[in-house]
């Protein structure tokens, strides 16, 4: 299949792996963080770690939109969905994120109507089809999804749709990266930069990482060869003693981002003074809320939102996993009390969560798997 298979070519992967191995200095350990959960997913889904030498460790970062939503916000959303005549819409990933009294799935079993949508624009269709209902879109995600929420609000305003609003939980990636860089627990050698976020914000916002913290950043695409190549580019920078921001995903990411998308965000949303991140606590200027000009579409103003802070379950170590301090399997409840079907923490819910990716794809001792499979490809 074009535009997919060429980025999953095993021969090219072998060649890149050899070049990466050649750049490893004997005795040195390398810790590279892939910021984005989409990368984590690709790494496990394609078994990319099989290509890396033991001295390179990939550390999974905080860039999983579902993972960083605190329990209190899930409870708030279910509270909103429980109001009379409300239909809530949300991305599928959110459906199983646990709040203090179950997830959206459980709330639906108790009587709420929370529908899965693939695009926020689908919420407008639902609003138009149900004029006697109030449709609330549970907006989540980094700068990647914020523009589509913004465009939906702008379209709702242009079309005069009154029964639609947004429960805004959009977050921004840079403060989270900064929190990790300032965290004393972790020593990283470089960053695989988030590709989708960068299509919107561009590469410039990462320059402080290279300049002030001396760490190389390579913005990477989401196919396995993209990631392998970005690891090679990071290793080359480390080998040559450089720390720069480079763009591996130039086929999609413009250096200066997407001005139209940024304008739409700017027109509809503004930074919150602070926002709670699951496991990371409150981070200042790290999230977006609706602007006053869009107050008619702000569910937090239209409805009474309890806004109660709910502490994470004690056993859950999602925060440490999100910061890359713990590997998923090092969490005390990983795979026993916390599994994808009965998640305690968010990292086990989203396919982009490090714990879910490791549990679903990576949970095996590679030495016990036969090296080669003894069938000839017999695909007709």
């Amino acid at each position, binding site marked *: 299949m074009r535009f997919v298979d060429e980025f999953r070519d095993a021969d090219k*992967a072998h060649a890149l792996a050899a070049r990466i191995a050649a750049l490893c200095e004997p005795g040195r350990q390398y810790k590279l963080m892939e910021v984005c959960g989409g990368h984590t997913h690709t790494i496990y889904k394609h078994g990319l770690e099989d290509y890396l030498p033991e001295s390179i460790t990939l550390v999974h970062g905080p860039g999983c939109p579902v993972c960083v939503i605190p329990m209190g916000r899930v409870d708030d959303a279910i509270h909103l969905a429980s109001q009379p005549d409300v239909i809530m819409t949300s991305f599928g990933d959110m459906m199983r994120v646990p709040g203090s009294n179950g997830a959206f799935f459980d709330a639906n079993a108790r009587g709420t109507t929370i529908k899965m949508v693939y695009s926020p624009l689908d919420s407008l269709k639902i609003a138009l089809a149900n004029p006697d209902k109030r449709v609330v879109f549970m907006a989540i995600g980094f700068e990647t999804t914020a523009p589509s929420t913004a465009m939906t609000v702008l379209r709702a305003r242009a079309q005069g749709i009154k029964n639609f609003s947004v429960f805004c939980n959009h977050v921004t990636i840079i403060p989270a990266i900064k929190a990790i860089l300032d965290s004393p627990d972790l020593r990283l050698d470089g960053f695989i930069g988030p590709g989708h976020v960068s299509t919107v914000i561009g590469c410039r916002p990462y320059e402080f990482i290279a300049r002030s913290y001396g760490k190389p950043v390579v913005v990477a695409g989401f196919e396995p060869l993209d990631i392998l190549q970005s690891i090679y580019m990071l290793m080359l920078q480390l080998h040559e003693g450089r720390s720069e921001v480079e763009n591996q995903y130039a086929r999609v990411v413009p250096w200066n981002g997407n001005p139209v998308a940024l304008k739409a965000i700017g027109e509809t949303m503004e930074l919150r003074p602070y926002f709670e991140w699951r496991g990371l606590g409150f981070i200042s200027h790290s999230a977006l809320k609706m602007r006053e000009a869009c107050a008619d579409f702000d569910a937090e103003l239209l409805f009474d939102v309890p806004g109660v802070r709910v502490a994470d379950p004690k056993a859950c170590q999602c925060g440490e996993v999100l910061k890359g301090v713990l590997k998923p399997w090092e969490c005390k409840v990983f795979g026993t009390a916390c599994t994808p079907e009965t998640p305690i923490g968010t990292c086990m819910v989203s396919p982009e969560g490090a714990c879910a990716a490791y549990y679903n794809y990576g949970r095996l001792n590679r030495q016990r798997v036969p090296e080669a499979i003894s069938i000839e*490809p017999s695909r007709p």
Partner: protein
Amino acid sequence: MTQQLASTPPSRPRRVLPTGEREQQVLDRIERARRRRPKLREERITMSHGAGGKATHTLIEAIFLDAFRNPLLEPLEDAARLPMKGVGEAGGATVALTTDSFVVSPLFFPGGNIGDLAVNGTVNDLAVAGATPMYLSAGFILEEGFPVADLTRIAESMRDAAAAAGVAVVTGDTKVVEKGKADGCYINTAGVGAVAAGVDLGVANARPGDKILVSGPIGDHGVTIMLARGELDIEADVESDTAPLAELVASLLGAVPGVRALRDATRGGVATILNEIAKAADVGVLISENAIPVRDQVRGAAELLGIDPLYVACEGRLVAVVDGDQAAQALAALRAHPLGAQAAIIGEVTAEPVGLVTIKTAFGGTRIVDLLVGDPLPRIC
């Protein structure tokens, strides 16, 4: 959760193990946890319980198996084989019984409708148990206001599908519920078939060295239904693969004595069946992504939607576990039939790692293929 924590010995001096060993300890602990009897934690039924993945398995084992437990039910095969006085003695045939309900939405879709699906689904459950399908029942739950013309179309499709599969619908039932209490039309079918003497198929029979085959491209039905709902604004030239598999099975069993197990890959897809093999037979299953036949349209749609074709339902494809020495024979037998023309060997049964399905990805890496969690595709059959 608290049980877990409490079961850890409290004050044993901790030895610091190297990372690899510590990780292996965690993996072992997880395997033990997975082997424990599943407990249903939800207070209410959610859509996940109908998705054919882990939650469905838990529901069946915790509620139904617990309530109805008996040796005929316990293997949880697609059809039960019934000992009856006077039947099956002295080397004669035995009786197989199965049932299936259909709630697909939309009722009509490219390649079929709920009617032929309801006949083929039950015919196939019998066929993969090694039975020759013979008689079907049909129960209808209809919503007030449902168009008679649609019901006629559905009944005609059922008639044609039954004729094609060589079965007769010999008994039935009809109920009507108030508007809003059902979604148009639901159908339940049950089927009875005859299993020839000496046929003993079951996923627990799989052993290391066996090969795993699929009878054609996977995922057509699930993707067709998803696109037919029109919610995604994606169009693709793909239609349901709904078809009766009895003839294909008969020709396979006739040509290859070493067939150990057959399953039709419906809800939960091929991945779910492979997991059932690994679990029931205490073996590993290793497959190759490059060997799995998937139509480009299905791969493309699945790629866009972020779902794996391995979990997408088929309604006319079977998975076969065959003695390794007879795999080529089995492949030839499948390919000789029109419904198996694109059959392929996709993997093998291994001694290790026990209970796990692993895949060699096209990219050249290795990963697990686990049971599906959650419900990306509700009401596909």
